[in-house]
Structure formats: structure tokens, C-alpha cells
């Protein structure tokens, strides 16, 4: 814990978190809010499964169901999975490359608050006249047709949180390019840092098309433009393209960090370096690159014509190759190793077959003529939950458990962790395996109910039962977190004992300046190298000196609140009876730009931690 922030009241802690620019605290903010959104999205999933448990169910109305799936998909992808991953990146990546913070601490905070308020805007829709109901893909004809303001909330919420993600992406890129500690060459970076790097690049290039798509939809719905109005010359397919140009890289934005986490965990608990490190790096970059060439595989049935379908089908299949390289490298990391089954390792191990099953159904979907059958059926639902839950969510659960001690300084209970693991894993396969068949038996996705007599009853019931297992697993995890936090047993630098990378060479949680002296990376798995030579600490790369740190700031929240206000003006702009909308837009934007102006006018040079204080700190640690 930092010596500066101890023993404070709740208000002070709150203020501290609202103004913090420390990557580790921002990580915690991401994890908490992402976690809350995950529970929200999970509850929505449970409602979906309850409604579909039996035929002709009327647990919810058709309209509510559509809101539920839209919010489930949107929340899970944009507000749960991605932010949690960004949180883990924030917590771990700077430590892995031996940096004292990210390149732009202020923007880091801004990115978080944009994401958070975007999520708030989106979810306020539940209380302000109805949630978006056009699916998470929000295809233009339906979303333009949709009554009420639900889709407007979708557009504005995603627009705001999208800016946040873009900022985070640029921030990570610059951090990794410019702020690696001496000796940390690109080919010595831990795998998780590599995936963070590639993912950030994907964010940089994938989010602008989404921004444009959302802007067009915003103009159409709120300011009377005609991009998607076929009668006025518009074309709805433009939306589909823009969405998927973003949407497909997005799924790799989700899975690559999970790949990174598993690479770390598998190496750690096999006590063996990652097998084929350089081909893993290559595969990651290749996946990122190919990810931009395949988006039309979501549009095989749109009518793009056989040439386009054939090209995109083949391009899509190509992704099996780099992904396969990764799968086999993971297996061979364990091969010949000394494998210890801790909870994070259980997740990592179970991920391999689970994700493979999801991946190969992806290749089946890529077979365009067969996809005419699969598309928009439960087969697709099964595919993407296999890759997302069997890949991303397992990755998140693994990452949280693995890095929990580093982030919070305590260990989650292993026994409870194993319960969570088994409930979740069994529930997951139970829920989604059967859905492949539902799809093949003709069940379309996004149906709020189905009639009896079509042969889908039993399978749907099984699927719902599986979802309950998953919920139990998640609840046990929550209990585990509470128990662990209450007990608050502190741990040392390297609680898993087999840590290999720099983050395990410093205290858990690290001091707010991370490294007293920047460490010298002498190879891949820098900390492991030192350990093997019998050392306890890293060799420093610089003499002990003053450390420059940035000041906290409330301005990020102010900038965000301006956009938050403006979005409500835009939201109701097309309502004839509301005359206040334009002034509200202007006021909101004034707050935003005013805050930005203040930021640029007020010089903020940060502060220095003096060498002497650092030495004090060390002394205290030794005593404790």
C-alpha cells in the first residue's frame, strides 16, 4: 500500500478513486464496474434462459425479451468482457514491462470514465422508456424502425464508451512502445503484453468504423438524416458492413487478451517457458491482421454474391492456422513440464478443449453454403458462446484468480475456487453444447418463444439447467471474494511461487510508483532468470533517484459528464414536444470542451518522490 493513502474515510477514498490516475487503481475501477456489468448481463442471460426453458412461456413479453437479448449482448461485450480485460491489462501490463505507469495517466482515467458513463447511459434506458431492442448488432432497418428511444440509448452509450476504449488502446500502445524498461526488447515481452499490444492496435483500427456507423445512425435517428432510409436513397447494408468491420476484430479484441493470460498461467504452473514463444508472437500478430479481412462472414446470407462469399469464406478459414499454432504450443508448454493444478491452471487447462470446440464450429460457419443453414440459428449462438464463455470468460476468471494477489494483496480461497470452476465448466457445456443441435433442428436465434411440437423442448430445458449451474458458480465466486476480503491475509511478492515475469518481483500490491528502480530485463521471463540464479530481486537498471509522478485530476469526470449531459439533449432531439434539447446539447459540449480547455491551460507538471522517502519506504518494509 502506498504510504500516502492510508487510513482515510469513505469520502476520501471515493474522491481518491474519482481523481486517481494510477494505473493500478484505474484497473480496480475497471474490474469493479466490469464485474457489476457482468452480473447484470448474467442476470439478463438467466432471464433469457428462463423464458426459453419451456415452450409458449410467458415469463416476459416479446418486447421485453428483445430488450433483454440486446442488452445482454451489448452489456456482456462492451461493458463486461472488454472492460474487465482492460482492467487486467491496466493492472498487469505496465508491471510486466517494468514501467512506473502508463504513458498517459490522465487519459487512462478519462478512458475509464468514458466507458463507465457510456455504460450508465446505456443502462438508464431501462428506466427511461425502454431499452434498445434491435439486437446487439442493431441492424439498420430494424433499428431505424424501432419506436421509442431505446436504440438512441444504444447509439449514445456505445459512442461514449467507445471513445473511452479507443483512448485506452492508444495509451497502451504508446506505453508498450516507449516505456519498456532497459533490456525489455520486443521479443522479451511477456505474452500477455504482446496480446495487449496487438489488441490495442485492433482497437485503434476497429473502433473508428463503429464510431462512424454509430454517428450515421445517430444522425438518422436524431437529426433526420437518410443514410439508412431506402426510400430516400439510403442503404442499410452500409450499417452491416461498418458494424462488422468493427465487429469481427472486436471478437479478437476479446479473445487475444485471454490467450495472453492463458499463456502466462500455463507457463507459470508448468514451470516451463512458453513453448514456441516467437511463433506465438507471430500467430498473435497474424490473427490480428487476418481479423480485418474476414468481416463479411457475418453477412453470407445478405446477398453479397458468390464471389464475395467465396473470398471471405476462404479468408476466414485461414484463421484456423495461427490459432491452431497457439493451441498446440500451449499443449506443448505443459508437455515435459511440472504441472500444478491451481484454480487459474484449471481454467487454463479446461480452456484448451473448450475453445477448440468453439473454434472449429467457427470454421464450419465459415463454409459459406453451410452457413446459409447455420446463420441466425442457435448453432451460431452455440459457436460464439463456446468461444466467448469457453475462451474469454474462462480467461477472465483465470486472470482474476491469478492476478488477484497482485492486485489486492490477498489470495482467493482455492477450495471455493474449485467449486466455482466445476460448476461453471459443467454448466457451460450443458448450456451451450445442446444449442448446436437446436440450431440444426431449425431453431432460429432471437426468438422470444417457440411452439411445442417442433422437437426443441428437452434441449431448451437442458440448456436452462446448465445456465443455473453457471449462476451457482458465479455466486460462489462472489462469496469467495467477500470472504477473502474480510479475512484480508496479506501475501508476499510471488504468492504462486512460480512467477516468471516482472510483476512478481515487486510487492503485492505494488507501491504506487511500482518500481523503486527500473529493473534490468536480461531475457524472456526476466524474473525467472534472476530466480534461477538464486536472487530474490531484479537487478536494477538505474541508480536510486527521484521519481516523477503525475497528479490526480477530477477533470476526466468533468469531461465525461459534459458528454453525458449532451447525450440526453441528442436523445430527445427528434421529439417535437421537447424544445430544450439543443440548449442541453450545447451546455453539455461546453462542459466537455471547457474542461478540456482548463486541462490544456492549467500546467500540471506532477510531483517528485524524493530519493530519501524511497529509502524510508524500504526500511519500513523490512521492519514489517
Amino acid at each position, binding site marked *: 500500500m502506498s504510504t500516502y493513502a492510508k487510513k482515510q474515510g469513505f469520502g476520501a477514498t471515493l474522491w481518491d478513486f474519482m481523481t486517481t490516475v494510477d494505473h493500478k487503481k484505474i484497473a480496480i475501477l475497471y474490474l469493479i464496474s466490469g464485474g457489476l456489468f457482468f452480473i447484470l448481463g448474467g442476470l439478463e442471460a438467466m432471464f433469457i434462459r428462463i423464458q426459453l426453458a419451456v415452450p409458449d412461456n410467458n415469463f416476459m413479453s416479446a418486447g421485453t425479451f428483445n430488450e433483454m437479448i440486446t442488452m445482454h449482448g451489448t452489456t456482456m461485450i462492451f461493458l463486461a468482457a472488454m472492460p474487465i480485460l482492460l482492467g487486467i491489462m491496466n493492472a498487469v501490463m505496465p508491471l510486466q514491462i517494468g514501467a512506473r505507469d502508463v504513458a498517459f495517466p490522465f487519459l487512462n482515467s478519462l478512458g475509464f470514465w468514458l466507458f463507465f458513463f457510456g455504460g450508465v447511459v446505456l443502462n438508464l434506458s431501462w428506466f427511461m422508456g425502454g431499452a434498445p431492442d434491435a439486437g446487439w448488432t442493431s441492424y439498420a432497418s430494424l433499428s431505424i424502425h424501432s419506436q421509442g428511444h431505446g436504440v438512441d440509448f444504444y447509439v449514445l452509450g456505445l459512442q461514449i464508451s467507445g471513445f473511452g476504449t479507443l483512448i485506452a488502446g492508444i495509451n497502451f500502445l504508446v506505453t508498450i512502445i516507449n516505456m519498456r524498461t532497459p533490456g525489455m526488447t520486443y521479443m522479451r515481452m511477456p505474452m500477455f503484453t504482446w496480446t495487449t499490444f496487438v489488441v490495442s492496435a485492433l482497437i485503434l483500427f476497429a473502433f473508428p468504423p463503429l464510431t462512424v456507423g454509430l454517428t450515421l445512425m445517430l444522425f438518422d435517428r436524431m437529426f433526420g438524416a437518410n443514410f439508412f432510409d431506402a426510400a430516400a436513397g*439510403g442503404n442499410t447494408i452500409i450499417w452491416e458492413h461498418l458494424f462488422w468491420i468493427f465487429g469481427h476484430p472486436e471478437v479478437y479484441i476479446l479473445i487475444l487478451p485471454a490467450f495472453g493470460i492463458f499463456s502466462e498461467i500455463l507457463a507459470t504452473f508448468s514451470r516451463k517457458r512458453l513453448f514456441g514463444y516467437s511463433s506465438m508472437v507471430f500467430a498473435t500478430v497474424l490473427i490480428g491482421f487476418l481479423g480485418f479481412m474476414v468481416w463479411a462472414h457475418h453477412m453470407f446470407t445478405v446477398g453479397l454474391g458468390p464471389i464475395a462469399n467465396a473470398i471471405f469464406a476462404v479468408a476466414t478459414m485461414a484463421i484456423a492456422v495461427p490459432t491452431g499454432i497457439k493451441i498446440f504450443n500451449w499443449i506443448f508448454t505443459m508437455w515435459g513440464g511440472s504441472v500444478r493444478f491451481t484454480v487459474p491452471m484449471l481454467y487454463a487447462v479446461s480452456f484448451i478443449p473448450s475453445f477448440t470446440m468453439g473454434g472449429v464450429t467457427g470454421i464450419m460457419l465459415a463454409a459459406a453454403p453451410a452457413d446459409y443453414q447455420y446463420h441466425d440459428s442457435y448453432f451460431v449462438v452455440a459457436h460464439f458462446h463456446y468461444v466467448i464463455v469457453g475462451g474469454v470468460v474462462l480467461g477472465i476468471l483465470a486472470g482474476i484468480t491469478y492476478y488477484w494477489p497482485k492486485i489486492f494483496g490477498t489470495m482467493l480461497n482455492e477450495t471455493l475456487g474449485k467449486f466455482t470452476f466445476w460448476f461453471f465448466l459443467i454448466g457451460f457445456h450443458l448450456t451451450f453444447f445442446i444449442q448446436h443441435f437446436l440450431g440444426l433442428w431449425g431453431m432460429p436465434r432471437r426468438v422470444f418463444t417457440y411452439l411445442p411440437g417442433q422437437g426443441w423442448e428437452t434441449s431448451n430445458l437442458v440448456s436452462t439447467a446448465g445456465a443455473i449451474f453457471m449462476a451457482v458458480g458465479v455466486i460462489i465466486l462472489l462469496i469467495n471474494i467477500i470472504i477473502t476480503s474480510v479475512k484480508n491475509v496479506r501475501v508476499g511478492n510471488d504468492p504462486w511461487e512460480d512467477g516468471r515475469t516482472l510483476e512478481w518481483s515487486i510487492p503485492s500490491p505494488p507501491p504506487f510508483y511500482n518500481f523503486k528502480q527500473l529493473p534490468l530485463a536480461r531475457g524472456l521471463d526476466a524474473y525467472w532468470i534472476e530466480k534461477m540464479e538464486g536472487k530474490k530481486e531484479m537487478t536494477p537498471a538505474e541508480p536510486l533517484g527521484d521519481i516523477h509522478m503525475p497528479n490526480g485530476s477530477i477533470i476526466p469526470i468533468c469531461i465525461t459528464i459534459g458528454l453525458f449531459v449532451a447525450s440526453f439533449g441528442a436523445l430527445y432531439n427528434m421529439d417535437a414536444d421537447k424544445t430544450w434539447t439543443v440548449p442541453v446539447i450545447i451546455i453539455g459540449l461546453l462542459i466537455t470542451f471547457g474542461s478540456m480547455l482548463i486541462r490544456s491551460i492549467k500546467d500540471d507538471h506532477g510531483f517528485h518522490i524524493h530519493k530519501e522517502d524511497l529509502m524510508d519506504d524500504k526500511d519500513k518494509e523490512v521492519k514489517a
Partner: protein
Amino acid sequence: MHVEEKFTDATWPAAPETATLEGKNKYLGFWLFLGGETVLFASLFATYLALKDKVPDSGMLLAKDLYEIPLTFAMTMILLTSSLTSVYAMYHMKNNSFQKMQAWLLITVLLGFSFLALEVYEFKHYVHLGHTFTSSAYGSAFYTLVGFHGAHVTFGLMWFLSLMLRNAKRGLSLYNAPKFFVASLYWHFIDVVWVFIFTVVYLMGMVG
């Protein structure tokens, strides 16, 4: 080298924009941002091209009926020149001559404002002819693409102005040199986009 350090002409670094880590980060981060902006404008261009001349009824004005050479030419010349003047400003920044830099930036800003004025005039003219944001998909796409560029120009101007006013009394330092430099990068990028706008939208619009 310290951000608050005072410099003489001789000690002023050759590349003041990247002399500190903050400067380096800002410089790189901004370039990356421009990489993203490239995709953003490409998406807008793509949309415009897909919707060009897509109007609900045949009586409506199309690209070749609207665009005129003289106005576009004037706007192009103004913006291209402003790119050069901002280069001059950065030249003086590298020579640590603050006043000259300010002067060239002022010229850049004035050119930028005249560009904007012409753009506003142009839009007004089109609206008068019945080609509006809401009249057709073509109209929506046109105003969105060109308007996005216009908004970038406006933002660039505000940025320059606030930097100039803010630092008028303080002179150059390693703290604000990267800011000036990055703002001028932004200005060049706006110019790059305009090169494509005048080619793809206006010239290609006129030849049909």
C-alpha cells in the same frame, strides 16, 4: 532534461518535441491517433462513395450540378498554404524563436478561418438550392463527410488559438513544444484529408 528548464538558443534541443519522455509519448500517441483517424475518414469516404447521387427523386440536384471549380479551388489553395505557414511556424520553433512562431501560427489560423468562412458560404448556397442534410441520402453523406472535416478544422483552430494565448507570455519550453508540434501535425492531417476531399468529392463529382 527537465520540462521546466530554461534554454538558450544553443542549448535548445534539435528536436524539442521529442526531447522529454512526455513529448515522445505525446508525439507517438498523436500519430497513432492519426492512424485511427485515417480509418475514420476512410469509412466516411466509403459511405459517401456508396451514397453519392443517391436521391429519392430524379429532379434533385446531383454532384455534377452542385460543385463548382472556383470556390473549391480557392478553398484548396487557402488550406494548402496554411499547411506551409504552419511548417514555417515549426521551423521557428526549432530555432527557438518564439515570436516568429507565433506570427506564423497567427497567419495559419487566419487562413484556416477564411477556409471555414468559404465552407459555410458553400453549405449555405447548397441549402438554398435544396440540397440539404435531410433531403436525401446523398445530402446526408455529403454534409457528414465534408462537415466532419470542417469540424476538424474548427477544432484545429481552437487548439492553435488556445496554445498561442496560453503561452504568449511564457515562451517556449519543453513542456509546450510538443503541444505546438502535435497541433501542427493535426493541421497537416486535416490538409491530407482535404486533398482527398477535393479530389474524390469535388473533382470526381464534377467529372461525373
